């Protein structure tokens, strides 16, 4: 490592939280309600558990190999070529994730705020916003995440708090929901929203104390999970499951219905523009992950140049779905299959590493 290990546990936690909370929050209650009607909070909770399982596995792996990222240690565990194929798939998956994330938010902006702006413009602005800082190193990456975290959490919490006065507890009962057939799919869809946590695999080699990574993972999934759960509970209890099924972005509608006296009457616009920050941090994480992984995949010295080269590629992917409904089909599909890469693949790696008793070199911990 030509860079100092400077990332603290708090910084890791902040990075994970702001990476998890992204544009997926907008359709989140819809995913939950589609799966189990009034059981949406339960579905969300189970999804959080699955996401935590995935995060636990990659954190364990990271602690086991504290000097390497997943791209590097996978080659030690399952051999050079099998690992390369899997890693290629992981990188390709994040390419899709970044593109679709940018597209999703572009779609929201064009629908809700800038109705006459071509979607290409908003998407390219979002991608540029991620690509330019993606040239920075991991330390600055962590500074940016920590700085923006309050901006990400506060509007959501404010909206949840303000909407509770319209809440109806009956909408949340029965807790188990009615229809359990599609529940598994819904859980997987929501769990897929947490896939940004994969960023921790490249963070651990830069952490001051890699052993404490698990603490960061726990806190991050706790805070981000609570946030998701609150949003789902608020949305379902305000609108009720049947109403939510009619809405594309229930969270946005939630913001629209909340008002704060006569002072702020239309919160949705403010909510949306502040939400740009949340989307930016998520895109930034997945963009940096891509650039970083590719540079390690090809054993490049740094990832700076890659950042701009990837831009056209991501843009083409973002523009591929024809409309927002098609886009959501793709997102659900990609997200669910992505779980194979982000949860099952690390599980396999961990099991193999334990069976073959492989461990990374000890770190010299500083600080």
């Amino acid at each position, binding site marked *: 490592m030509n860079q100092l290990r400077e990332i*603290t546990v*708090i*910084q890791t936690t902040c990075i994970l939280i702001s990476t998890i909370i992204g544009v997926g929050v907008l359709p989140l209650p819809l995913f939950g309600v589609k799966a189990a009607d009034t059981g949406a909070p339960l579905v969300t909770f189970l999804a959080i558990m699955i996401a935590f399982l995935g995060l636990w596995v990659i954190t364990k792996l990271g602690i086991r190999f504290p000097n390497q990222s997943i791209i590097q240690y996978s080659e030690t565990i399952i051999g050079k070529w099998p690992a390369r194929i899997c890693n290629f798939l992981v990188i390709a998956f994040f390419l899709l994730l970044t593109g679709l994330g940018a597209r999703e938010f572009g779609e929201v*902006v064009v629908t809700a*705020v*800038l109705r006459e*702006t071509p979607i290409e413009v*908003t998407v390219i*602005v979002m991608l540029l*916003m991620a690509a*330019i*800082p993606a040239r*920075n190193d991991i*330390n*600055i990456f*962590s*500074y*940016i995440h*920590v*700085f*923006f975290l309050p901006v990400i959490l506060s509007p959501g919490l404010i909206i949840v708090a303000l909407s509770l006065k319209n809440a109806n507890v009956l909408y949340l009962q029965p807790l188990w929901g009615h229809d359990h057939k599609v529940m598994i799919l819904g859980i997987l869809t929501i769990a897929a929203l947490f896939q940004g946590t994969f960023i921790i695999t490249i963070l651990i080699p830069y952490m001051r104390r890699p052993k404490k990574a698990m603490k960061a993972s726990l806190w991050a999934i706790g805070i981000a999970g609570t946030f998701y759960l609150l949003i789902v509970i608020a949305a379902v209890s305000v609108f009720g499951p049947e109403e939510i099924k009619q809405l594309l972005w229930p969270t946005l509608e939630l913001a629209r219905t909340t008002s704060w006296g*006569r002072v702020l*009457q*239309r919160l949705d*616009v*403010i909510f*949306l*523009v*502040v939400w*740009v*920050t949340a989307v*930016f941090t998520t895109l930034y994480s997945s963009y940096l992950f891509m650039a970083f992984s590719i540079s390690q995949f090809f054993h490049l010295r740094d990832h700076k140049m890659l950042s701009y080269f990837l831009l056209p590629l991501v843009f083409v992917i973002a523009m591929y779905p024809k409309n927002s409904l098609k886009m959501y089909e793709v997102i659900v599909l990609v997200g669910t299959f992505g779980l194979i890469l982000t949860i099952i693949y690390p599980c396999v790696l961990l099991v193999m590493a334990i069976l073959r008793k492989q461990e990374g070199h000890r770190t010299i911990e500083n600080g």
Partner: protein
Amino acid sequence: MDVVFITYDRSEKYLKSNFFKKNKNKNKQDQEITPDQMMKKNNRSKLTGKLDETIQIIKSLLGENDDFVIRHFHIFGHYSAAMVYLSHIVDHEVVNRDILKPLMNVPNHLVNKMINLTQLEDVLLNETLSHSKTHIENDIGKLISALLHGKTVIVIEKLDKAFHIDTHKVEKRAVTQPETEQVILGPREGYIESIVTNLALLRNRLPTADLKVKTMTIGRLTKTKVAICYLKGIANESLIKEVEKRLSQIDIDVLLDVGYLEQFIEDNHYSPFPQIQTTERPDKTVASLAEGRVAIIADGSPFALIAPVVFHQFYQTTEDYSSRFLMGSFMRMARVLALVFSLFFPGIYVSMISFNPELIPTEFAVAVAGGRAGVPYPAVVEVLLMEVSMEVLREATVRLPRQVGGALSIVGVLVIGQAAVEAGFASPITVVFIALTTIGSFATPAYTAAFALRILRFLIIILAGIFGLYGVVVGVIFIFNHMLSLKSFGVPFMSPMSPGNLQGIKDTGVRAPLWWMYKRPSFLHPTNEVRLGTSPKPFQKAQSVPSVEGNQLTQEEKNEPTP
């Protein structure tokens, strides 16, 4: 032989940026950096002991000047000698009283004693010349440079060494109130152009052996004296080394102000944000030194550079610390608000008018629409027009002679603003917003930082004109990303906010009581962190004088803090 080329090696070190390297090397082929042409010819020659020859060389170099004076005389009536100086920059009284007089008259205890040539040097230095800054030199090049620095040179026949005595005297202005950083409560003295006075101001405030002043000369023609000041045992050693390294790599012909230095040693040359603070105040410099920073002072400049610097310093003043903490915090928050005004107000205004009128309360929206009824342009163009004319006005006010300036600003703001509204160029509400913005930008204490915000404001207005509030937020994210990635001498620009530091946050938006801030800012990595003594508070209730029961009045009086 005569021409000293800057070698490729040196230029590479000196120009860190690859961008310029190509151009610079091309230039190097046909022309070298401005030389000191006169000096080169006699660079290495030593004194030979022949008075006429030496005088001839000096004369050939400086003889054309009107103020060049050679005075032949005899030391103790015996040895023929010559005194050389440049009459405009020496103090004649010192020359006559402290040099010429003792040299011509034999001291009482030496009367009738024979002094031979070998003793002469010793006698002159130790018993005759009663001036503290007397030196012996045998290199002609150095003698010439001494002459040019206002020293008086005495060359003696048959002696292969010469004396030079500091008789420098130059007019300088008095220490006055700093113009750019005024405070209500606080010291009134500011730096002047003389480095000697400035260092004296610093030493007066820091009578400690730990204050180190390292000097170097930068500028091939100006030979400007540059001083690096720091507190040993507080400032981080590697920081001092880094500052010295960056300064020593500067090779330029003229250095007129510390601003030249700033541009060479800053980390990011393309950022709108200053990464080094300039200050006119000795008290501010001392405060920074005590926190573990390094100050750079250059001769001829009434400013000191302070590095490293973080963003929060640009809206802080020394007054925040000297006034009580509630007052200091309040003023600081007002300044942050002004900063936000000056950066975002026009952008938010534009996006509200053109994109999100639903955010404006209904009653007010009617007034806005009424005001804008006659304005032919979109809000962006209107605001940009007003902003540009405001910048022109501001620049004109700075350049104009003081007597005219006051009149112009009144004419500019009142008459032009009024006329613009009446003529239908701008709506009255736009004028209000622009006025607020401009006033807000004046409240930022650091001129250089205010300038950065002035530039970025235009970026935000344009983004707001294209994307509305979304554009404003995009602009804000871009700006913060840039600020978070900036570094000043290795210190992240936004610390202690991010990377976070609990101790440091006490001195950002608010100014915590002094006894809460018992440590030096850790982002500067000071060698010694502790600022306060063991007692956490300067005065506690328990220490008050025990009161006499039943005597309420005296008790209140006695509760007054005692030292």
